[in-house]
């Protein structure tokens, strides 16, 4: 009984809550899970070393923080047992405290039984495993196949050409479509975009693109000036490297305008024993669930837009946590809003 008194004391609550507050502030201010050299660079040798030694580089998974959470839960449990009769007098307060206990319990279930990881898939390929956040590989009880990956845009990427007449500085700008030609009437030239190089390099066989990443965008142009045609490369990142011939009457500058992504979509299929059992197109905020595993659209690889980046999650704590959330809202509303009246 004496132990219960100690554990349920309000003084212990203030101690635990204040220490939790301090722990969260430390974890909120100090960058978490950064490489050791970053802490040495940020805080110097002495304090940077202390950050790593005292678990401040990963506060929320450290033993001392877990211990603090466990102690807070014990305090709350003891309080709820000690004051269970208050359920009749102040039901809202009692329910709110029990709700937080459910959330703590959900946290324990999550820590012990949940799986969170990621799965990069290329269109047309399948996988029966995924990589956990700790780097290990986990099996899936089925096979997941990426049929197709697509990106929708609010506004697609644009290739904008700025042409300037050398003699008087007259300037005109137009967007050019790939394989399309645009006429710059006042200046008197026609420009056709022949090929787009998202990440331009000079390969063994001439100009090429390293990958799909828009890191060094370049255009190969066919320029017709007074009936004379010439080929020319223009580079968005290097406007002065333009290969304009000495006798040309105008200069061309290339501006690459990135597209605004609206949504990215993965068409997924689940196979079990060689048979397709499910197909769904997922996008951000619209996952697919099968046998407790959920697949979320997380992103894509800008270097290879056939790759879809999926997040995988299996978390049995969710019902417990949501129960805690619901009870907490009801309990607090009951506790605070039960007596309407004058302020």
């Amino acid at each position: 009984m004496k132990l219960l008194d100690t554990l349920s004391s309000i003084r212990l609550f203030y101690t635990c809550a204040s220490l939790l507050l301090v722990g969260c502030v430390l974890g909120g201010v100090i960058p978490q899970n950064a490489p050791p050299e970053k802490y040495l660079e940020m805080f110097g040798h002495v304090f940077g070393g202390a950050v790593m030694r005292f678990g401040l580089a990963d506060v929320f998974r450290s033993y001392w923080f877990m211990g603090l959470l466990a102690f807070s839960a014990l305090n709350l449990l003891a309080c709820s047992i000690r004051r269970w009769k208050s359920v009749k007098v102040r039901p809202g307060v009692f329910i709110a405290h029990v709700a937080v206990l459910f959330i703590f319990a959900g946290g324990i279930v999550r820590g012990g039984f949940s799986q969170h990881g990621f799965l990069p898939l290329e269109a047309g390929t399948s996988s029966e495993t995924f990589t956990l956040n700790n780097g290990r590989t986990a099996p899936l009880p089925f096979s997941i196949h990426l049929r197709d990956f697509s990106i929708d845009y609010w506004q697609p990427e644009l290739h904008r050409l700025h042409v300037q007449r050398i003699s008087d500085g007259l300037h005109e700008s137009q967007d050019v479509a790939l394989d399309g030609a645009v006429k710059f009437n006042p200046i008197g030239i026609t420009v056709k975009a022949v090929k787009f190089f998202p990440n331009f390099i000079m390969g063994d066989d001439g100009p090429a693109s390293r990958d799909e990443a828009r890191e060094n965008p370049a255009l190969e142009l066919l320029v017709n000036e007074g009936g004379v045609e010439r080929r020319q490369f223009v580079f968005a990142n290097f406007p002065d490297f333009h290969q304009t011939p000495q006798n040309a009457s105008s200069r061309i500058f290339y501006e690459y305008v990135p597209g605004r992504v609206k949504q990215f979509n993965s068409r997924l299929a689940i196979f079990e024993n060689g048979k397709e059992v499910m197909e769904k197109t997922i996008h951000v905020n619209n996952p697919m669930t099968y046998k407790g595993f959920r697949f979320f659209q997380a992103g894509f690889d800008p270097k290879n837009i056939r790759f879809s980046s999926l997040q995988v999650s299996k978390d049995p704590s969710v019902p417990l946590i949501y129960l805690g959330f619901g009870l907490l809202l009801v309990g607090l509303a009951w506790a605070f809003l039960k007596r309407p009246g004058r302020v």
Partner: protein
Amino acid sequence: MSTFLFSLVFGLFLAAFVVSAVGFFFTMKWRFRPGLAALVLGWAALGVLLGLRWKDSGHLPLSNQYESMLFMLWAMQAVFFYFLYRSLDALEWLSPWVSGLSLVCMGVVSLLNSAMEPLVPALQSNWLLIHVTTTMLGYAAFALAFLGGVILLMKNKLKSVGEKEEALDSLLFRSCALGFWLLTLGIITGAVWANSAWGSYWTWDPKETWALITWIFYAIAIHLRRTRGWRNTRFAGLMIAGFVFVVFTYFGVNYLLSGLHSYA
């Protein structure tokens, strides 16, 4: 139109501040009413401004800090009007203070990027409405508690507070309780949204962590009031300190720490 409305709102809040501050020099019963009327008009104009942005952008005007702060300001005034209505006008002398804080907020908003951008994929969800509105309403209630706290701590210098101290202390607690409930709802809806968008309801993202810090602080403050009897100036001090956490969670995290809420 938006520029005109923004200037109109600013002008009305300025008028509300000046006219209601002048009310302190008079003794008649209705001396704060003209300023309060200007404040209500400014609030209505701000509502129209937000509504127009909603119509023009095609999504809720809560997608960046410019929009969310305008909404928070609108919500703070709505909470004030609610408490004013419930107090049978006993709090109308607070209108110069609310107008002053509104002016400061409008000044800060004018420094933010007002460009309307299409929604990034993560924000294309119905959860945006409930998560951001409840969180901003919570911050708005805490802002009112902060304002009340400042006035209560200055009571020795303000003759007008005097006998209204009890009503002000009650306003502090009601605002705090309302803010706490709304912040709880904001955190919970954010967690449910995160679970449906990323598969994890809690990732210790800096915004989540600082929202939790704010929540723990106000939980301690409420316990101190309920179990240790911290009222009036002591509770006012807590409300001022708590608002420091609110401001850091809302502003500081975005500029000083990177995370999933970098667009917020």
